């Protein structure tokens, strides 16, 4: 076994959450989760009427939700990471099955005994569902806008770093572009009142 694998195997939940929280260790965290829990998550889907493709899609959804909930401090290690991931996949799969208008009996079973943590997860999943319409609006922007907004909001780069990394001539050009793109996106949201109202309602429930 390599040193890297040994280090991964000994990663504690606390280390894992800390790495995700800062956003600097996402790859290491994901590698650990896949090595330790992927089969468990996959088996859950396979033994509940899903197939390989469903499992692969859903596990990615689990990872996105898990990372965001940790970063937004909606999960701080109240239960083990393994149990939390299991609860996540269960809820996401139920949500997916509901969308497919299938498996009503199984859904009823899942509703029983839902605790506070599951309630929180369920609300977050509702928010993520509503967010998909906003993601589609973001996707419709030009590549230049998507790049500059991602560098600002996801990579958390400074204006100076963005100038160094891209072809912008100076910092003012970057700032101008950022606000032009932000305005374009908020205007798109303005023109999609249903999407905006849905996500606002989901946010209200999540508070």
């Amino acid at each position, binding site marked *: 076994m390599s040193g890297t694998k040994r280090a991964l195997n000994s990663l504690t939940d606390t280390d894992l959450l800390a790495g995700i929280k800062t956003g600097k260790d996402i790859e290491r965290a994901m590698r650990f989760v896949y090595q330790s829990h992927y089969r468990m998550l996959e088996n859950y889907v396979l033994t509940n009427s899903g197939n390989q493709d469903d499992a692969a899609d859903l596990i990615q959804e689990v990872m996105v939700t898990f990372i965001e909930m940790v970063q937004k401090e909606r999960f701080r290690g109240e239960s083990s990471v*393994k149990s939390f991931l299991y609860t996540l996949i269960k809820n996401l799969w139920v949500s997916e099955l509901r969308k497919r208008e299938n498996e009503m009996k199984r859904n009823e079973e899942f509703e029983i005994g839902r605790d506070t943590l599951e309630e929180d997860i369920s609300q977050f999943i509702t928010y993520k569902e509503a967010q998909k319409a906003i993601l589609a609006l973001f996707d419709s922007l030009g590549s230049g806008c998507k790049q500059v907004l991602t560098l600002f909001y996801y990579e958390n780069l400074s204006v100076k770093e963005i100038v160094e990394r891209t072809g912008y001539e100076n910092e003012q050009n970057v700032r101008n572009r950022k606000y032009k793109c932000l305005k374009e996106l908020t205007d798109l949201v303005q023109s999609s009142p249903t999407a*905006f109202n849905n996500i606002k309602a989901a946010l209200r429930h999540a508070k």
Partner: protein
Amino acid sequence: METLEQIDRYLDRTLTLDEAVGLEQNLQTDAELQNLFDKVTVVRDAVRSSALRSRVRNLHMQLIDEMRQQDEAVNVVPDFTKVRPLRYAQSLRWGARVAASGLLLLAGYGSYKYGTTNIDSYYSDKFMAYQLPNNRGEVEEVTPLDVLYRTGNFAGVVQRFAGLSSPNAHDQFLTGMAHMQHQQYKEAIERFIVLRKSNELQNKSLFEQETDYYLALAFLGSGRVGDAYPLFEKINKTPRHMYHQNVTDEDLWKLGLLRWKSN
């Protein structure tokens, strides 16, 4: 400073204290400003989420590739081999030949199939040992029955089951599968039917799809093709059934022949 920029900088916490207090006061009274504030908050989060999704997708592909390579290196048969690959290619080729050769060849093919298809060969082709999911024991409790089943002690499973005062659905199913391993089809049928009746009474669907398939096989093993056929037909007609890939149209056609032969 434009309002949009002011909100953005407020969310980045780069406004001065006076500017931040001023904005907060305006937010209390200005509905339009509050609306814009909400939009900026939502779109900033969407930008982050979109980037995270992209990153997770790329990492997922990389990690899955690595896991496959590891599986191959240690020559482990991955879990997903439980579901057999589709036989579409084979069926399509056969279909094309039939179309090209006309009804005479179709009649010949039918005769050939009729002569060679029998219950034993069909059963052997379709039976797969049921494997317990790996997650059992990580989240759910491992039962003594699980341990006996996993170690291949099927007689032990049956014996242990006999001593249970109130077996649950999992116990019923696993014991049914243990009987299947010993070709004790009558006993397997009994276990699966008890489980399905219990589901009906409690309005549940535990192991429903598993028992569709294995009860059909147990019927087949005991020569009751007529009872097996509707279950196989249900699986074939339900694309989302977990055993759908195991019962093709051609399989159903073969079963039709077997049913006809058994009458």
